[in-house]
């Protein structure tokens, strides 16, 4: 057993862990942080992505012992203490960037890291930046849109949108799409 100390979503935890314990299993099974999930066993899907020292890591590919002394942030710690959503969470909601939601914790954390690295990405850069996170439901289109919307909010170019409510979201009535000219381009 190894003695480790982690700060997870602002709370310090000191534990003895089996050296083979993965960070994701430590989070889920010992600390009760079940918001972070496991989707594969080969580091491909990214569902378990968390921030470690501010950088995104796949927590299935980090041993708990390796994380000793680190600060970990999961999707559960992203919202403000008052419950206010992080701009990326809000944008995922507003843009319908999730369906079943299983990839979402990892996808959101990867997007947070992506925007920290590149606050003004192109659509292609968003796609490349999220390459390590698989989603089976959305086809990624609304995820790209959400990340761009969040980026704009985080650059403070546009005010944070409120829940779209009964107002049709832009572009969702009838023609949900850019016009033919954009296609031709």
């Amino acid at each position, binding site marked *: 057993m190894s003695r480790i100390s982690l700060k997870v979503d602002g709370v310090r935890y000191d534990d003895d862990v089996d050296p083979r314990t993965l960070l994701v299993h430590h989070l889920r099974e010992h600390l009760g942080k*079940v918001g972070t999930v496991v989707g594969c*066993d080969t580091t491909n899907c990214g569902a378990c992505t968390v921030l470690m020292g501010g950088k995104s890591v796949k927590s299935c590919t980090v041993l708990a012992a390796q994380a000793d002394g680190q600060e970990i942030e999961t999707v559960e710690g992203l919202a403000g203490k008052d419950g206010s959503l992080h701009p990326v969470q809000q944008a995922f909601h507003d843009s*319908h960037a999730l*369906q079943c939601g299983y990839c979402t914790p990892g996808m959101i954390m990867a997007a947070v890291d992506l925007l920290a690295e590149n606050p003004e990405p192109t659509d292609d850069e968003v*796609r490349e930046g999220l390459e390590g996170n698989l989603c*089976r*439901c959305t086809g*990624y289109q609304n995820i790209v849109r959400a990340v761009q919307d969040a980026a704009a909010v985080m650059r403070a170019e546009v005010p944070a949108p409120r829940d779209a409510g009964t107002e049709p979201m832009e572009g969702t009535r009838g023609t949900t799409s850019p016009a033919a000219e954009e*296609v031709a381009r």
Partner: protein
Amino acid sequence: MTTAEAGPTPQVGAARSRKEDARLITGRTMWTENITLPGMLHLAILRSPMAHARITHLDVGPALEAPGVIAAFSGRDVADVQGSMPCAWPVTEDTVVPDYPPLAVDEVRHTGEPVAVVAARDRASAMDALEAIEVDYEPLPVVLGMEEALAENAPLVHGDQGTNKCYTWTFDSVQAGTGGDVAAAEADAEVVVKRRYTQQRLIPAFMEPRSVVVDPTGDQITMWSATQIPHILRLMLAMVTGIPEHKVRVVAPDVGGGFGGKLQVTPEEFIAFVAAQRTGRPVKYTESRSDTMMSGHHGRDQIQDVTLSARRDGTVTGLSIRLLANMGAYLGIVTPGVPILGAFMYNAIYKFPAYRFECTGVFTNTTKTDAYRGAGRPEATFAIERAMDELAAELDMDPIELRRRNWIKHEEFPFTTVATLTYDSGNYEAATDRAMELFGYDALRREQAERRRSGDRVQLGIGVSTYTEMCGLAPSRVLGSLRYGAGGWENASVRVLPTGKVEVITGTSPHGQSHETAWSQIAADQLGVAFEDVEVLHGDTRTSPKGLDTYGSRSLAVGGAALVHACERVVEKARPIAAHLLECDPADLEFTDGAFRVRGTPEAAKTIADCSLAVFTSHDLPEGVEPSLDSDATYDPANFSFPHGTHLCATEVDTETGRVRIRSYVAVDDVGRVVNPTIVEGQLHGGIAQGIAQALYEEASYDNDGNLLTGSFVDYLVPGAPDLPHMVTDRTETPAPDHPLGAKGVGEAGTIASTPAVVNAIVDALRPYGVTDVPMPCMPERVWRAIRDAREGAPEGSERS
């Protein structure tokens, strides 16, 4: 809407953002794997490394000595109690339904088949103990290919059955009285297109691995499972194990995707059920991704021989389909029926005067196949849409023009097809015109011609797919005539609480489809309550006692109709109460804009909430009125739902490297009236992505010994964000005449439509090189080989000017 100033904003049709998201974006979810119960044991399952072998020795004894192990058992240990996995759809009277023990007893028939289970205090102890189990296998000959399996003297997957043939199912329009004879049509045809297409094997690859928790400690044994079908699962547990149905409760908590892959009753669920009963303690089993890919059911895997007869003016005169469908080693819940769902769809949107379909199901030493998004209909649509493009090329006709000459015209609906279905409504003209406009069809054709002329290394291809599908499964009597073991109705109930808040209980079981949002919109409109005041309950046989779950694009098409009817009954029960409160005759009331109003004096109004409070106190109800507004309804559709649409894909194909890039993708779908356009668009995006994935990336493959070569996401290429294009989606709206909201199904449409659009575009790009097909997935190597093969030995007549 009239008198809108008085009423609430209509919810149906509004792009409401989702109720479900609040928990999903903050990590406050209840996945099955998150569940921990007092005293819970963790299961690990030993799986066969052999594709076909006799188990000559199996001893779990050493595993029992390992630390933390509470129990371990093999198939032989539970042979008398574990039962046989059910198949609910033997499609013919003589369909071979082999014994299918959850834990193999004497013989294993595919790699990954469960052979023993360990229950331990934690997951790691259980997995460690698997290594201590002693097991010896005597290898048996393996048969993997379908044609090989049907050959004489082929090794038998099930020796006791004497054959690898599961069934042969035929449809002939002569016998059905719906059309002529395909042989005659072929003999008289001016043009005959014969093609063979292979639908490669796919893996559903939902993101949440399957997981099951069983608690045997209550009066009811409770099973939580990552399933699409909690109600069917409960029934099957009862029927197979003999446990009385009322002693079993099944819960599908948050479920992370399914796509048909969780439309299954799994050996793992039964193994966990038995393990919980034997140990008397709660147990949990969560599979790894590799387990999922090895032993969760696969999809597709068919060989299609297509014969299309036509006149030179493009009029189609006959269609004959011969299908081989790989069942795998065993039959899952609807394995034999999947290709039969396609039988009614090969004729697609076209007016074929003669049609014949023959399908043979084949056993092989592979993981079983079963439903995967579209289930039979993507395969059918692919074959016909590819063949129509081939016919267009043969006739040197524009592929859209060829389709126009043959499709059912808007004014011809409802239209009874050669395959006996009555298509309810459609407007193929409108969807196609809109798609061509968004796509810039003519400009792209001009660019294609220019690139061909200049001999550009990167050629442009345009792929067309005009599809329809039958969904909204399904009219019960039709299912009965196809020998399916259950009906196709759906149930909904509505509870009006004393404060006027509403609980909707649905028999559908969402796992990403947003029922909590969409059903709230429907109930809000029907009852005149706020969207926020509706709670949708689902996926627990204790709260939602009756239902047939979610698959086959049925939830809104069937379950949504049930909900509308349940709400209508609430309104009718409230009517005499409202009349009493307003001191008028019930006949003088109309329910408009969310309240009962006296005709002619709309300012006097009583809401459902007013009535529910009156019901709660019951101090002053009219004589003989039951003090309840709660209602339920079970809806059995009279017909399927037939969404349709036109998808256009432009690909750029590098003729030197074989690399394919989707340049643009336009989808115009008609799914009838729409409850929530945002949700519909999301369903289409995801569906199209999965169809593109079949066209370009995904294939489950085995080596010659039957080992799955694509057992993880390293080898099985589920596309990531950079692998998929931006999609342009739009809709036309042709209401479904038989549905109270005019809605049709949408869940499978994108997947059904997109695969042929992409492959048609690739082949179209390469026609000047003599290429007439590229096998899926169209990876660069295959595209490159297709070009090389065509150049080296272009078949006569395939070279086009």
